[in-house]
């Protein structure tokens, strides 16, 4: 995906000193705009409580301290009744189970869409495409009552099933597109050899579909890990709050937390994502680019 070849497109781009200088200034400006808020929050979070309102060049603390991080952990546990490790555990359970559920069902359903015949196929598919454009909030009120009726409100299952219903079309769309790109000769050769449809899916299509599944995992991981409104409304019991819900409570609560604790809490949610992103950045960028093309 990432080719770092120096491009020779258009010699006049290279020759123009104005273009050279303008691009440097503009891109540098944007990099600063992107990095500064994150560095600033990091800076706030590692200042000692006495020096929290001042720093050299707005960023470099006069006195370093990790006290804010300890405060952030204590504050979450005492005021929210849910610790940060517990929030991360909740998010991990919800995310991993939803992603697994969605992908395992999509693998089979997408196969039916791409290689099998059934009535109303394209109508159903169009409904799925249309539902991808619908905002999640449209489903909020009826889902709330359905989950109450099923007796699973305030449990992990509530959010997992809501995510599954909402995100399954994305999995099916991507996998169907991918299955259909696999050369027809391959599946035909399989049928001639007497393979059943199930064997075709498991032995021929799935091994080839690994990149598409990786794309799905990335997209669904981001969608479910960062999701806020369903998690907030369907799991109001504090002990099962996910990371965004717990953080939003800390950040917008009426009893103000001090700025250092606030920033440390935000950084606790950002740093793990930053590490994962640093390791898998190519996958993230490639996955989200591929995912965008489904529209």
């Amino acid at each position, binding site marked *: 995906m990432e080719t770092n070849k120096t491009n020779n497109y258009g010699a006049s781009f290279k020759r123009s000193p104005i273009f050279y200088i303008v691009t440097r200034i503009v891109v540098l400006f944007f990099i600063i705009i992107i990095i500064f808020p994150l560095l600033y929050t990091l800076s706030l979070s590692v200042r000692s409580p006495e020096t929290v309102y001042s720093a050299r060049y707005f960023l470099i603390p006069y006195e370093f301290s990790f006290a804010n991080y300890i405060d952030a952990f204590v504050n979450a546990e005492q005021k929210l009744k849910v610790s940060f490790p517990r929030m991360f555990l909740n998010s991990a359970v919800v995310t991993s189970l939803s992603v697994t559920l969605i992908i395992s069902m999509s693998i089979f359903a997408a196969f039916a869409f791409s290689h099998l015949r059934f009535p109303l196929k394209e109508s159903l598919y169009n409904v799925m495409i249309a539902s991808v454009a619908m905002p999640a909030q449209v489903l909020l009120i009826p889902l709330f009552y359905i989950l109450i009726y099923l007796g699973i409100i305030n449990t992990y299952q509530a959010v997992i099933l809501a995510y599954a219903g909402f995100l399954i079309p994305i999995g099916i769309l991507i996998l169907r597109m991918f299955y259909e790109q696999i050369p027809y000769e391959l599946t035909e050769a399989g049928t001639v050899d007497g393979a059943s449809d199930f064997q075709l899916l498991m032995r021929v299509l799935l091994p080839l579909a690994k990149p598409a599944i990786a794309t799905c995992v990335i997209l669904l991981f981001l969608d479910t*890990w960062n999701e806020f409104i369903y998690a907030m409304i369907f799991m109001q019991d504090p002990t099962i709050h996910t990371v965004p819900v717990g953080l939003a409570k800390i950040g917008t609560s009426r009893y103000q937390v001090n700025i250092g604790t606030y920033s440390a809490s935000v950084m606790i949610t950002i740093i793990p994502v930053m590490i994962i992103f640093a390791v898998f950045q190519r996958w993230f960028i490639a996955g989200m680019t591929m995912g965008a093309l489904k529209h």
Partner: protein
Amino acid sequence: MIYKTFHFRTLLYLLPAVFIFLTFNVIPGLTSLVLSFFDFTGFETNLFRNFVGIDNFIKIYEDKYFWIALKNTFLFVFGAVFIQTGIALILSIFIFFGNFKFSVLVRSIIFFPCVLAPVSVGLVWKKILEQDGVLNSILGLDYSWLSSVSLVMWLIIMVNTWQWIGYNLVIYYAGLQSMNIELLEASDIDGANWSQKIFSIVIPLLWPTTILNMILNLIGGFRAFDIVYVLTRGGPAHYSEVLASYLYYYSFSAGGPNKMGVGASVAFVIFACILTIAVARIIVSKKLRKEA
């Protein structure tokens, strides 16, 4: 197709996914439309007891804050579709043709906010924009940015752009990488300068990617809720409310009116907006295909 006809075994592949999709997506979606004609609160067991016709719609029609929320939603969508896409277009061209040594790193940095939770992003910016925040220290001002009725929506748009610009950027970059460069080479021979190339060759060639980015941002724009919720909670006095947060306020917010029927009618409006756009898109693309 493996088979020429329908086999019952096909249902085994299909049913789990379709069952979940129908139960937790299609049925609630349709129920939401029906519920907008009923009056009920969060504590009721029989939602369909109190039919009120179009009372809920009259209620939001007469509520000045609904119109503010509608206007804000369109403003937000406008910002995402035109401003955000426009900046991403220029930025991607600059990075692609600028021959940067670290172009992968540059893209990764600008992309990074996309993987963060909007909640985290909103809280990062909230402290920056507060009255004793760093923006005022840098500018030497003492302004309460998020309490400004005229500015607050633009600030929310700015924060949203900050988060998602990298997404449009990498999509544009993929478009640039697959661009046909023969025209550029030909224009070199004709002696075109860089601005002529950008405006007469690169941007027209990127048009399909621009459309894709605009559609993605349009859909994303109607979804906006998290950033509004953590930055302002719709304030000051509902002046930064968008449709989604207005729905939340009416139906779920502690201390709100707890009128779920009204919330459902707001969902109806969102549904209608998206549907109108989807239909318009199909008509336009059909027309374009006919002309081509």
